[in-house]
């Protein structure tokens, strides 16, 4: 009897603790949600109670009519899609070669890639800037795609290669006997089997450009070539504080991300766990 009571009290304490913690986790998110629908501009003029100022959708209208939000969104989507598609293509092709062929400089190349993948790309950003200037890629979306793509390759080639190593080589052997060439084996046999890792690679390389700031800031100049991160940042600089519009814009980006994460939560847990064990 007494044990049951202490158990119940423990439970209440745990739930209370979790609830308070949830409040802390949710507070900024709820506040931003309310700011997006509140009249006014700066964060200073907002009521401290969420949704305490009334309700308006004016900021969303403003986003679509008076700012370049749609252009930013399109640009970012374009960059993310191209980066993701090209990363999948280049990294998996390289991974296939590393996994299935023996050639002269293989060891050196693999080692170089392993060492290179620890450096953040922006360590060499001055040089990247000048190289893009040289090849006409400055202030171009494809210039940014090239930079992301190159930065993605070393780590992801290794990742996909490790996965492809686990695919039995007898599968491609039998295909070769049936007369398939390397390209067919790669595209029709290995890629479908490696689908889980390819999807993972596609998702990670698609989401990264949405949040990047340094390279777009450095490479993109003209107003019609900005990305979402740059645009959102421009709402809350030292010079002006349009927190409510920033909030509206942020929510439109964040909602798809949040929905996606909640849907894939289970799969992520297992793939993370798997990654930790397998390595």
């Amino acid at each position, binding site marked *: 009897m007494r044990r049951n009571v202490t158990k119940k009290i423990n439970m209440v304490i745990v739930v209370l603790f979790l609830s308070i913690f949830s409040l802390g986790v949710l507070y900024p998110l709820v506040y931003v949600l309310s700011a997006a629908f509140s009249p006014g501009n700066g964060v200073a003029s907002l009521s401290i109670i969420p949704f305490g100022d009334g309700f308006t959708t004016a900021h969303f209208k403003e986003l679509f009519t008076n700012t370049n939000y749609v252009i930013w969104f399109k640009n970012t989507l374009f960059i993310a899609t191209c980066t993701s598609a090209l990363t999948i293509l*280049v990294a998996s092709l*390289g991974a296939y070669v590393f996994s299935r062929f023996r050639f002269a400089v293989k060891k050196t190349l693999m080692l170089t890639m392993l060492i290179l993948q620890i450096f953040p790309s922006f*360590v060499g950003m001055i040089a990247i800037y000048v190289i893009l200037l040289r090849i006409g890629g400055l202030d171009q979306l494809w210039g940014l795609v090239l930079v992301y793509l190159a930065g993605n390759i070393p780590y992801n080639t290794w990742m996909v290669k490790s996965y492809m190593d686990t695919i039995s080589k007898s599968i491609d052997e039998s295909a070769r006997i049936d007369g398939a060439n390397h390209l067919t084996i790669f595209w029709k046999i290995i890629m479908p089997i490696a689908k889980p890792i390819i999807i993972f690679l596609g998702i990670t390389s698609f989401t990264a450009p949405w*949040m990047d*700031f340094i390279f777009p800031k450095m490479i993109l100049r003209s107003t019609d070539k900005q990305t979402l991160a740059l645009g959102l940042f421009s709402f809350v600089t030292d010079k002006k504080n349009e927190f409510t519009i920033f909030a509206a814009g942020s929510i439109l980006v964040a909602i798809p991300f949040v929905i996606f994460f*909640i849907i894939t939560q289970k799969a992520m*847990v*297992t793939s*993370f766990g798997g990654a930790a064990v397998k390595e």
Partner: protein
Amino acid sequence: MGIRIKEDGSSKNKILLTSILFMGLGHIIYLKQYVKGIIYAAIEVLMLYMLPKVISKISGVITLGTPKPEVPIKLRDHSIFMLIDGVMVLAIVLLFFVIYLISVRSALSEYKIFCVQKKLKNNRDSMRGLLGKAFPIFGLAPSVGLIVFFVVVPLVFSAFVAFTNYSAPNNIPPNNTVDWVGFDNFTAMFGGDATWTTALGRVAIWTLVWAVLATATCYFGGLIMAVVLMDNRLKIAPIFRGIFILPYAVPSVVSMLIWQNLLNGSFGTVNRTLIKLRIIEKAIPWLSSDWMAKFTCVMVNMWAGFPYFMLLITGTMTAISSDLFEAARIDGANRFQLFRKITLPLVLYQTMPLIIMSFTYNVNNFGAIFFLTGGDPVVADSTVTSAGGTDILVTWIYKLTVNLMKYNYASVLAIMIFIILAPFAIFQFVRTKSYREGEL
């Protein structure tokens, strides 16, 4: 052609010599592999044709141009273009020598095959072999090209800049040239110049402290949440898990900018709320006092980062066999002992690589600092060095390049990051399957 080679291996030197003399010559004269030989020879011819240009570009790296104040700006030597072109040309020359080496080795191995088989490959066989070998080349060319020009060349360039005086106001092309200065930047940063030395020490220590604290808080925050939510008596755990995952799902630029506004000292919502509730009297300088700002950075980063480890640890915990717990429970272990002796060691062991990856990620965590505090608040040396109280090495690099245009010092910092991260790179390398299985 009447030139023959012997089958007993004694013609090895002949082949070696001709192959070294001109790329592909051994293939053409002795091995009769014309297609392969001509491709190799063509590469060398192309290289010889480009030689004057190669030499002028490489000498450009050595001189970095001469100052010509009398000519219009457009015609002056642009040291930085010269440096980058030179580095790119060096990369191409290196690539050429690698191909050269491959060609010589290929000739020797073909000769070995000839000695065993006692006959030369006919052209059709050698063509087929060539096509088989073409696939790896075709498959790796995009990767290698991109990595050489967008990763290796920039890194080498950065390393070179650390030995020049490329900085505002006196050495910014195209107006002025840049010169080699040896180790001057390093001596200035490491003791020579008091202001820069203190700033570097301060920022380097904070970078390490930050990376350790950021990783530790996120890890243990995630661990506690994972353990609490794993308790199967808690029926509403999925709801809490759903809530806790939210900060991870929001793009970090967005969440950091939100916090920056909420925590603003004078008009931020957090302070206004606390004052209204009479919890505090005066506004708390969340982001504007040195120590407070550092603390805030760690806390906000924990808010954004603990869900990752919560997910991760939940994943590893579900993978632990329940037999272990069963056996321990029979032996009379209580819940705390189960956690302390079974769960914790297993989880720690399995997530160790990811803790280390997270540490290296935090050393370079530009977003968490830049969008929250912008590196501020200003401290004693900030006016000269631009490094604020919460600046870590990467944000300082950003400020040095974008605001101060002191590229030389920024490159010294980049090299420091290299030194900090190198042990982790080695660790990661030793850990890989390929290394353990002797493939590398």
